[in-house]
């Protein structure tokens, strides 16, 4: 039992740290460190930088062009990226669909899709949720009817994150409604430029356009875009979910944001207020406990021992912590957090029309309430925390 990384791992960390800091554009990391608005270009610029180094798919095995890292190396890389202020990798391509294509796709699909994902050129979206499906993903209603060598897709997906930028979307579609729900689902890759695909924004309460509805109206999809076998899609979907793993807790970002909480508290004059500081201290304990739990999972995975059964716990705790730090930041800035200037969330805005640059407070307060609002999603998406508790309870109690 040892809390230290090995010298090799430490060397790896140094290497990654050096590379990330040398290659992450300063304007992007400035935005990330201050929760300013990231453009599509910001995200894709970083994806392509990673891609050029063969790291956009940093979790990929060597045979598919990835670095072939183990779980701890991946964690170290994620940590270095997070602490340096790089944007989260948009996961739908490299983290979600790519492993499914690797595991269940044909060699032709490997060749056709994986390079574009790795390079960051092709933007993928996720087509899982449907209106009314919520946490019940198997209730897929979007139909795909086989007609010769193509499928005709009709239906609707929703909550498609960043779908407005999507080139391709991977979808669960119903190919058989005669059997029980799980048994009639297929996994289909759809070109979003196909006729009949419409993307419509959903504006969230923070005023942002982050999620979308995607409509399919007689969309023709070549049969070669079916991954694996027809009606076996649920198996692949579960494989994908299992693949999301430890980063679900997003503890590295939590560490960076906890540091930001402290910076904001200091700037707002409450870092030395005992009452407020206690709240930071409690959060600090929460973050360290979460990080230790993540490290335990990594260690078990790395050691090849039987996996720790705490995935549901990681999601629940990680999301609660995200909500708490966003809330604490907002409370740190106090009354000023009420100010809601969309333009102040753009990098470079200086607020010259106001007497002190930002109404009544510091410019760092601009995105705080928006983030607090935005993070209400974290306990809902990816399997709501209620569903996660069901899963944990099932393991405990049968």
């Amino acid at each position, binding site marked *: 039992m040892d809390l230290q990384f090995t010298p090799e791992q430490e060397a790896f960390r140094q290497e990654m740290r050096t590379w990330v800091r040398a290659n992450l554009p300063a304007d992007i990391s400035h935005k990330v460190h201050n929760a300013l608005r990231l453009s599509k270009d910001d995200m894709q610029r970083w994806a392509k930088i990673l891609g050029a180094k063969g790291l956009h798919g940093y979790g990929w095995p060597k045979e598919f062009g990835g670095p072939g890292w183990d779980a701890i190396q991946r964690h170290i890389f994620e940590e270095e990226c997070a602490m340096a202020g790089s944007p989260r990798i948009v996961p739908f391509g490299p983290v979600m669909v790519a492993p499914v294509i690797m595991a269940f796709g044909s060699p032709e699909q490997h060749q056709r899709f994986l390079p574009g994902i790795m390079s960051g050129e092709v933007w993928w979206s996720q087509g899982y*949720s449907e209106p*009314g499906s*919520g*946490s*019940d993903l198997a209730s897929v209603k979007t139909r795909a009817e086989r007609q010769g060598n193509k499928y005709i897709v009709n239906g609707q997906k*929703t*909550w498609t994150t960043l779908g407005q930028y999507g080139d391709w979307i991977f979808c669960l579609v119903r190919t058989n409604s005669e059997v029980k729900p799980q048994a009639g689902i297929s996994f289909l890759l759809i070109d979003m430029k196909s006729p009949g695909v419409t993307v419509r924004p*959903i*504006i*969230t*309460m923070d*005023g942002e356009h982050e999620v979308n509805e995607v409509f399919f109206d007689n969309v023709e999809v070549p049969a070669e875009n079916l991954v694996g076998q027809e009606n076996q899609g649920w198996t692949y979907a579960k494989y994908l979910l299992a693949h999301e793993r430890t980063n679900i807790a997003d503890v590295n970002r939590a560490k960076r944001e906890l540091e930001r909480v402290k910076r904001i508290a200091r700037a*707002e*004059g*409450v870092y030395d207020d005992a*009452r*407020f500081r206690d*709240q930071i201290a409690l959060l600090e304990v929460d973050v360290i406990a979460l990080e230790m739990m993540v490290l335990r999972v990594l260690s078990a995975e790395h050691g090849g021992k039987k996996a720790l059964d705490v995935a549901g716990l990681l999601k629940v705790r990680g999301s609660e912590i995200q*909500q708490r730090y966003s809330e604490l930041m*907002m*409370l740190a800035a*106090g*009354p*000023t*957090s*009420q*100010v*809601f*200037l*969309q333009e102040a969330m753009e990098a470079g805005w200086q607020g010259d*029309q*106001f*007497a*002190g640059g930002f*109404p*009544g*407070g510091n410019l760092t307060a601009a995105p705080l*309430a*928006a983030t*607090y*609002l935005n993070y*209400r*999603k974290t*306990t*809902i*998406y990816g399997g*709501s*925390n*209620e569903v996660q*508790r069901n899963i944990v309870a099932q393991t405990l109690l049968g």
Partner: protein
Amino acid sequence: MDFDFTSDQEQLRDVVRRWVDKDYDIEHRRALVKAGGHAGADASGAWQSLAELGLLGLAVTGEHGGMDMGPVEAMVVMEELGRGLVISPYAGAALMGAGVLRDHAPSELQAAWLPRVAEGTARVIPALQERGARYRLSHVSATAQKGADGAWRVSGVKNLVAIGGDDGVAEAYVVPARVSGAVDAPEGIALFLVERGASGLKAQPYALLDGSRAAELTFDSAPAALIAEQGFAPLEHMVDIGIAALCAEGVGAMESLLALTVDYMNTRKQFNVLISSFQALRHRASDMKMQLELARSMSYYATLKLTAPADERRRALAQAKVQLGQSMRFVAQQAVQLHGGIGVTEEYAAGHFFKRLTVMELSLGDTMHHLGEVSARMQDSAGVFA
């Protein structure tokens, strides 16, 4: 010891509720928010309606054309405005601003302004927030000086001046400014009235996160009328009136939001059953009801303590805001959680309640601030009558 409303109060409630139900549904509100402050001086028509309903003179004495009503009537109105999520500077103008003039201004100032307040032609709105003050009322760095001509002039910057749904509609502001003492001293703060058109006054409006509008006011030797030279006690009194109003508004908003959530739970299916059949969610709804009823209890308490001696009043209002802060946060967060995805959209009403409840926690002292007040003002005895 009686918590029944009189029939007059029930009637007042009905009047406001009917207006809200008829003219102020969530679609109307969303349109207002979308238009921001660019839609003119009274885009919502709400102020006009409130005037027609006679509500703007609620806190104005009869001699100045008002209805001379008390804190309970104010609470009734605020509950209904909260229930309807009405964007309005009603609490600031009709309760706080009017209240401080009524209770603390010289009679000629009252005569000049209160009739206009009551008839709806003048809003007198508090302009309190300074940079770095957080929730400390004694943190006043704006200054006031009396010229050789005996006239006062105010300089400084005030922020988060809540002007409701539209820009620049206040006719005057209640402004604390320092005539002596250090920046954080309660002594040396006087209260002034500064008119909208005063020379040296600049207003810069912006949006708040609940879709309402606020302004930054910059005073550069702006001519001002003295409300009270010993201004700190009146300032505290005015803020307590505001806290009681927020408490009542919070109760109304939580009541609506709980009802919305209950309806949703009885409509929405997951795994082929209504989500209201899941015990864990049922218990959550029950906990929301608990928080609502605790909040309602403390809103009554706040309102009924408004007329108590200052020490007792301040302690009670802080206690109430601690309860409301906790309740509003819990009810808002759980309502969104129980709704799931739709709860976080701009399209659906729950998110708007969430935002308004969040703003209310951050207004006139958040939960931590008031917990500090409760702690500092604690006595050996305990309870409502302690």
